[in-house]
């Protein structure tokens, strides 16, 4: 398969993740959609690394996976903290910072 197929697939997956972030309101599902977008970026990185025949893009993809793991850990910690305080798990209700 040519590389452009992978790139278009990566754009499609990124778009689906963006729809999820725009539409869903549960912070857990929003984190999952963020994972979708990061994975789409990973696919693009690996595809471009294959295109130029250079393995450094795969190292970038690994670092993106590390960042995603950190983000998941902190995000899930926040969700547990929100749940412990008996606040609603809904990003439209948690609007204290909006002023």
């Amino acid at each position, binding site marked *: 398969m040519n590389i452009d197929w992978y790139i278009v697939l990566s754009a499609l997956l990124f778009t689906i993740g963006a729809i999820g972030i725009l539409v869903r309101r549960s912070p857990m599902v929003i984190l999952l959609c963020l994972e979708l977008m990061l994975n789409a970026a990973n696919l693009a990185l690996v595809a471009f690394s294959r295109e130029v025949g250079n393995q450094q893009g795969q190292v970038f993809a690994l670092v993106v996976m590390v960042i995603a793991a950190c983000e998941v850990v902190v995000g899930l910690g926040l969700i*547990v903290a929100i749940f412990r305080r008996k606040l609603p798990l809904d990003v439209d209700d948690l609007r204290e910072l909006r002023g």
Partner: protein
Amino acid sequence: MEAVLFFLAAIGATAGAIGVVAARNPFYSVLALIAHLFSLAVLFLLLTSAFVAAAQVVVYAGAVMVLYIFVVAYVGDASEAKWDPVPGQRLFAGLLAFFLFVEISAAVLSSALKALSTKGPDVPAGFGDPAAIGNLLLEKFLVPFEASSVLLLIAAVGAIVLAGKKRQGTPGKGTPPRATEPASVKEALTR
């Protein structure tokens, strides 16, 4: 053969992504994301990056998703309201996403990168296997590698601080132990 595998994995990845967005129960969203990650691992294998595919399955679909499932089981399925809080939110989200897809695709495909419509150059047999990636990580990218390990440590400590249990009845603080459900978000936050 390669085309068949690509389209199977692409359909699987897209279906998993749609499942993540569409499922009402967060538990099913997590399961759909696991299917999506396995399909992506197949795509990585097709792109001759074996180590990234293995790390995807072991780290992502194994460890991170287990963390998700534990938190979903702890919090329970907080079902969302079915109505749109902002009128027309889904319509506008769909429109925006469609234009985003068109824009990304057009930007990449018209970028005059000659090798985009090829399979890429022929690579030697060890391309993307653990030895090659390990050499890169420990020689050329040693500083980012160590920095990411420190970042993981900081994230773990931060998660413990965020989600850990507060000590009840610490001396000097006049806050009563949490007894009743807070009346509002503000009251709970200022507690």
